[in-house]
């Protein structure tokens, strides 16, 4: 199934969003590995796993838990560490 990940903050240099393929029944914690691979396709020098590990995923209304279920066509945002104010 396909998931759109919208990019913010330190991920902005990779564009507005990326699309990743996941197996049926995947959950939020399954996003990181294919997402990381997708970013490396865009920039082969990208190797910031610490940034990825410190990022969360969210919908328009809430931060998702790592075991939240995903479905085909979901659009979610990646939320790197925040720095507002």
């Amino acid at each position, binding site marked *: 199934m396909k998931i759109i990940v919208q990019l*913010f903050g330190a991920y902005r240099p990779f564009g507005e969003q990326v699309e990743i393929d996941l197996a049926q029944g995947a959950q939020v914690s399954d996003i990181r590995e294919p997402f990381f691979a997708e970013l490396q396709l865009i920039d082969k020098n990208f190797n910031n796993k610490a940034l990825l590990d410190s990022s969360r995923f969210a919908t328009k209304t809430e931060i998702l838990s790592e075991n939240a279920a995903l479905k085909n066509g979901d659009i979610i945002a990646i939320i790197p560490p925040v720095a507002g104010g």
Partner: protein
Amino acid sequence: MGEIFVEIFNSDEKPINIEVALSHVTQAPNGAETMFIGTVRNHNQGKQVLGVSYDVFEPLAKQSFLEICQEAQKKWGKDLDLYVVHSRGRLNIGGVSIVIGVGSPHRDEGFKACRYIIEQIKHRSPIWKLEHYVDGDSEWTKGCELCEHSHQVPEHSHG
């Protein structure tokens, strides 16, 4: 019941207006208006800063502002009038990044609510800061990692 206003303004279209914020929370039942104004400073961690650009995930940011304001009302009074606006886009030194206005019957709850709102926003709201330096470089500042359920983080000072 106090009123809550939360919004994101694009800096190039609608700069934050502090007088408007103040007028929102200046209501007849209130004897105290408390404001927090965040501005862009010209240095950070030894580097000279020219300006910053804020990135915002708007729907979730506004949702977080609303939840934080409702928490403040629960803690310090349903009658608090609250105004929170954050900038998105490029700001130069001295530019206003955020304004928080609290209108309250008395000063104590106003100070506490204002402090609570800014600290919670810094820890919970999906907003990011790209600093632009004098040497031509730019860098996303290190921020706060969100918890899985990021609610009511400790009120320690920050940034």
